[in-house]
C-alpha cells in the first residue's frame, strides 16, 4: 500500500469519535506532559530525601524531614549537631548538586542532539565538557582572578566552536565527523588538563585529575548547589523556550529556514546557551559523561520527539539518574568512593553501542 486512492467520490472522512483513530504521543497535551514531568519530579523529590538518608551514618528519613522542618523554623531538631552537619553540610548539598547537574546535562544533550540532528551529540562526546574542565583547571592552576564558572563557560564555548569548525571544515556536518571532531577536541583538552594538574599539584593530584576528567560531585557544598541550580534556572527555561526552534530542525536546516527560522542565529544562540549551561555545571562537577546522551533518548521513547516534551521529561529524569549514580558511587565501594563518571560511563557506553548499531548515524 503505497498511497491511498484519490478520495473524490468517497464519503467524507469519518468523524473522529471514540472509534476513530487516535494519535498516541502526538496528542500528549499539557495534562499528559505535566503528568510525566510531575511524576518524575515527585520521584526526584523522594530520591533526594532517600539519598540523604543513605550512607555510613544511619539517619532515618523521618529525622531528615524533622530536621528540614526545624531548619525551616518548625519544631525541634531530632538530629544531633554532628548528624545535622552530615545531612546539611555534606549529603544534602551533594544530592542537590548531583540532581541539578544531571538535569542540566540532560537538557544540554537533548538540545545538542536536536540542533545537530545527531543522535550521538552530547556535551561530553562533543568535547564541550572537556573544554569546560580545561577552562576551570586553567583558572585554578594559574590563579587568574576570573570566576570558575565563567572560565569553564569560555572553555566550553571554545571547545564547541573547535569541534564544529573541525567537523564542518570539509563540507557537511555529518554525525560521524562531528563525533570524531569531538573526540579529538576532548582528548586534546583532557591531555592539557591532566598535564596542568600533574605539573602543579602535589600529593592528591591523581584524584584531582580523575575528578575533572571523569567527573565527581564529592566536593559539593552549598556554593556548588548555588552555581548549578542557578545555571539550570537560567539555561533550562531558555532551552525550553527554544523547543519550537529545535523542532524546526527535525528535517534539517533547509526545512528549518522554510519554517521561518533564522538558521545561523538560532544555531549560535542555542549553542551558546548549551555552552553556558555545560560550563557552569562542569565547573562544579568536572566532565560527567553520557548523562546528556542517554537521558534524552529515554525521554523520546517515553513522550516522542517533540522538544518541549523531551526537555521537560529529560530534566527530572537526568536529575534522578545522576543522583542515584552518585549515591551508588559514594556508598557501594565504601569506604572507597568512585568518581561518578565511571558509573555513568558504564551505563552510557552500552547505550552508545546500541545507537551506533541502530544505524542512522552513518554518513
Amino acid at each position, binding site marked *: 500500500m503505497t498511497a491511498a486512492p484519490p478520495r473524490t467520490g468517497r464519503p467524507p472522512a469519518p468523524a473522529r469519535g471514540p472509534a476513530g483513530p487516535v494519535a498516541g*504521543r*502526538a496528542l500528549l497535551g499539557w495534562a499528559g506532559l505535566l503528568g510525566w514531568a510531575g511524576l518524575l519530579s515527585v520521584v526526584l523529590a523522594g530520591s533526594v530525601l532517600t539519598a540523604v538518608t543513605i550512607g555510613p551514618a544511619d539517619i532515618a528519613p523521618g529525622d531528615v524531614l524533622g530536621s528540614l522542618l526545624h531548619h525551616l523554623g518548625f519544631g525541634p531538631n531530632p538530629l544531633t549537631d554532628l548528624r545535622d552537619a552530615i545531612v546539611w553540610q555534606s549529603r544534602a548539598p551533594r544530592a542537590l548538586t548531583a540532581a541539578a547537574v544531571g538535569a542540566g546535562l540532560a537538557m544540554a544533550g537533548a538540545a545538542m542532539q536536536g540542533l545537530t540532528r545527531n543522535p550521538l551529540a552530547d556535551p561530553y562526546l562533543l568535547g564541550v565538557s572537556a573544554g569546560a574542565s580545561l577552562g576551570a583547571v586553567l583558572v585554578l592552576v594559574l590563579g587568574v582572578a576570573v570566576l570558575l564558572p565563567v572560565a569553564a563557560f569560555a572553555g566550553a564555548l571554545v571547545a564547541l566552536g573547535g569541534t564544529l569548525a573541525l567537523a564542518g571544515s570539509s563540507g557537511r556536518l555529518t554525525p560521524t565527523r562531528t563525533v570524531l571532531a569531538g573526540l579529538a577536541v576532548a582528548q586534546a583538552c583532557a591531555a592539557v588538563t591532566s598535564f596542568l594538574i600533574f605539573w602543579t599539584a602535589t600529593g592528591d593530584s591523581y584524584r584531582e585529575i580523575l575528578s575533572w576528567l571523569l567527573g565527581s560531585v564529592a566536593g559539593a557544598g552549598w556554593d556548588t548547589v548555588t552555581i548549578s541550580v542557578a545555571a539550570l534556572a537560567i539555561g533550562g527555561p531558555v532551552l525550553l523556550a527554544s523547543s519550537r526552534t529545535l523542532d*524546526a530542525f*527535525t528535517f534539517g536546516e533547509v526545512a528549518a529556514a522554510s519554517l*521561518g527560522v533564522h538558521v545561523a542565529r538560532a544555531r549560535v544562540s542555542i549553542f551558546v546557551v548549551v555552552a553556558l549551561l555545560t560550563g557552569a555545571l562542569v565547573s562544579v562537577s568536572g566532565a560527567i559523561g553520557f548523562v546528556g546522551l542517554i537521558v534524552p533518548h529515554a525521554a523520546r521513547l517515553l513522550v*516522542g*520527539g517533540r522538544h518541549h516534551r523531551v526537555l521537560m521529561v529529560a530534566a527530572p529524569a537526568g536529575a534522578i539518574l545522576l543522583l542515584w549514580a552518585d549515591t551508588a558511587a559514594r556508598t557501594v565501594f565504601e569506604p572507597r568512593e568512585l568518581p561518578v563518571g565511571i558509573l555513568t560511563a558504564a551505563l552510557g557506553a552500552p547505550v552508545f553501542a546500541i545507537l551506533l548499531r541502530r544505524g542512522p548515524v552513518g554518513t
Partner: protein
Amino acid sequence: MVRAPADWLQTSRLTFAAGERLIIDGVDCTVPAGTITGVLGPNGSGKSTLLRLVAGAADPDRGAILLSGADLRTMSRRDRARRLALVEQESAPDTPLDVLDVVLLGRIPHRSRWGPDSPSDVAIARASLDRVGAGDLAARALATLSGGERQRVHLAAALAQEPRLLLLDEPTNHLDIGAQLALLDLVRRLAESGVTVLMAMHDLNHALRACEHVVLLADGLVRAAGPAPDVLTPELVAEVYGVHAVIAEIGGQRVLVPTEPVSEVPLASPSP
C-alpha cells in the same frame, strides 16, 4: 478553513553563487496565481536552488523575489513561512516522530514559543492530513510508512503552514508509478483549492500531464518558459537535455518519448 487567495510569484534578475560557481544566473520567471508551474532542467541546472531561494533557505546575491507584488526580503521570516511552504526531496526518515507530530511541525510559524500544540493547531494538522488523504495515518510512526505515504505526510505538514504558495522539490522522486500519479492528482486538486504550486521535476511527461506552465532551466538560466506544450518541443529537449524525442498523442494526452541521445553530448541521467 478560510483561506486567502493564492499568491503569484515573480523573480527578477535572481542570481545566486555557491563559492565561485554561479548556480542561478539572472532568472526571471513568473508563476501565475492558482496554477501549477513546473521547473524543469537537467541535473545541476539550478531547480532545487531556485526553490530554496524562494523559500528563504538561501539568500540571493542579487535580484528580487516578489510574492503578489511584495518583496520577500521586506517580509519577516515568520511571515514568509506563513505564506509559502517547501517540501524538500525526501531524506532518510531517521526521526522518532509520529505522523501527527510531523504535520504539527508545519504549525511552527503560527504557534507561540511555549508549551504544547493548541487545539486549533491540532485541528488544522488533522485537516491537512485529511486533505492529502492520509487522515488514518495520524498515529503511525513516520519511519513505518511507505515512500508514497511519507511524501503525503510531508505535503500535509506543508499545508499545515496554510501557504498560498507551495514549493515542491521533485515530489514524485522514489515513488512507484501508481504513487506518482496519485501524488500529481493530489497536487492538481490542491491547486484547484487555491494554492499556487511551483514544482521542480525531472519527468517531462509528468510536466505535460500536471503543469499549466513550465520554466525550463539550463545552467542557471531560463532557456524557455510558457505553457508546457509550447516549451517541451523536440528541438528544446534536444538542446537542453541532449536527447532526441518525439511527441505523440495517446488518449488525448500529449506524451514525449525519448529516442536516442544527441551525439557528443553526455547523457543527463533521469534521476539523481
